[in-house]
């Protein structure tokens, strides 16, 4: 009975849900020309987990499709944009949440990386979801400050688990934690 209760508790906090990121929509900032957009496009294509990239040149946006079963690393995506000479203005991950509802302030593991959902009023139903990465350097700094007010957790600023951050969710210390807004 004790184990059943523990299982239900874990389920209710949404802890360590495992799901897949199937793709992403990335908007780059600072782009002013097709030549610049092409360098971002070509850099994104070199990522080992990227299957294909589509471009919306008018919006400076890139739609990425990921290889099934790969580890998806948002930091690598950001690095490739920065290497082209630009910044990430927004990164929306498209995730399949296996039909389970996602609770705010909960955690989940998506394609091999840990994510913390910021405490917000909405509850996301299961199924396909578009989740905005709100960590440092994934948004213009002014935008990021808006989200910083939603969480008192220090991992939002450090991007790392440890201390009092996320340790109650079974995530070991010094792990990269990304933060998501629903």
């Amino acid at each position, binding site marked *: 009975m004790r184990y059943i209760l523990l299982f239900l508790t874990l389920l209710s906090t949404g802890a360590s849900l495992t799901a897949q990121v199937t793709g992403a929509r990335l908007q780059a*900032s600072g782009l002013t*020309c097709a030549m610049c957009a*092409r360098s971002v496009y070509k*850099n994104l294509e070199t990522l080992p987990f990227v299957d294909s990239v589509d*471009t919306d040149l008018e919006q400076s946006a890139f739609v990425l499709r990921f290889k099934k079963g790969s580890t998806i690393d948002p930091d690598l995506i950001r690095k490739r944009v920065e*290497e082209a*000479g630009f910044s990430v*203005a927004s990164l929306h991950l498209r995730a399949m949440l296996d039909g389970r509802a996602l609770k705010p302030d909960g955690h989940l593991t998506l394609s091999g990386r840990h994510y913390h959902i910021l405490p917000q009023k909405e509850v996301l139903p299961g199924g396909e979801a578009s989740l905005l990465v709100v960590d440092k350097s994934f948004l213009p700094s002014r935008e990021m400050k808006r989200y910083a007010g939603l969480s008192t957790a220090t991992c939002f600023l450090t991007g790392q688990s440890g201390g009092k951050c996320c340790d109650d969710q079974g995530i070991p210390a010094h792990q990269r934690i990304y933060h998501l807004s629903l």
Partner: protein
Amino acid sequence: MQTATPSRPPGQALRAGRQRLRLWLASACFLLALSTRAQELYVFSEPASNMPAKAVALKATGKFVNSIMSGRTDHRQKLYASVGLDRKWMLRAGTTVSNMYSSPESRWESASVYAKYRFLSRDGVHRHFRAAAFLEASLSRNEPMFDEISLEGDQSGVQAGLVLTQLVHKLALSSTIGYTEVLQAKRWDKTHAAMHPYRSLSFSLSAGYLLLPVRYRSYRQTNLNLYVEMLGARNTDRPQGYLDIAPALQLIFNSNTKVNAGYRLALGGDMYRMAQRSVLLSVETTFLNVLRRKKA
């Protein structure tokens, strides 16, 4: 209307009038550039933004002048290779061949290296502000003959400077300030030392305007950009200077090859220069991800 004062010869008044007209034209071109879509792939100057990391670019340039020394059209060919080391550092090495100091025969004349470090980048969705520092060193076999200090093949020396580029919506403005020291052997030769200037402050203000395409649909669309740049310098060891305006057209093919055509015209100045105007033609191709390992 004749506005010359009795103490001013008519020729001088005419020249002053032409200079005023050129300044008005320059201002008009600048206002045109400010009011339209921004581009910062300048033809006569470098923006603070760097080339993509792990990319290599090759550039061939031809410069043509009506030389006051030889009395004919002299030319200089330049070849540059640039490398984006990472998102902050780029390096460029170049060499030049010209007949500007050996007319009519062309000969190899100089080699140079240039490094740029982007130390500030504030990006927003429709804006960015970037700042970079650069250092250039050039070795030239030419003997100094003019008052204009330039490391593009004319003199041996070093230059250090700052570039600031601001893009807000449709406005891209870039400004460069550089300090150049000529390190020519004659500088330390007592009989020649006083004949030429050896230090100069240079500055530029550049604006770019995207003419075509009206809507971006594909990387294969040819881009047509118009630039207007103001280029100036002032020697610091003797009171001389110049101010040029340099309009340029740029075509970009396949989002990787730029073809530039520029015309540089003196608006004013009191320097003894090789020419008051010049034509610049260049082609540059960028090879992305050349220095990156292939994906697994």
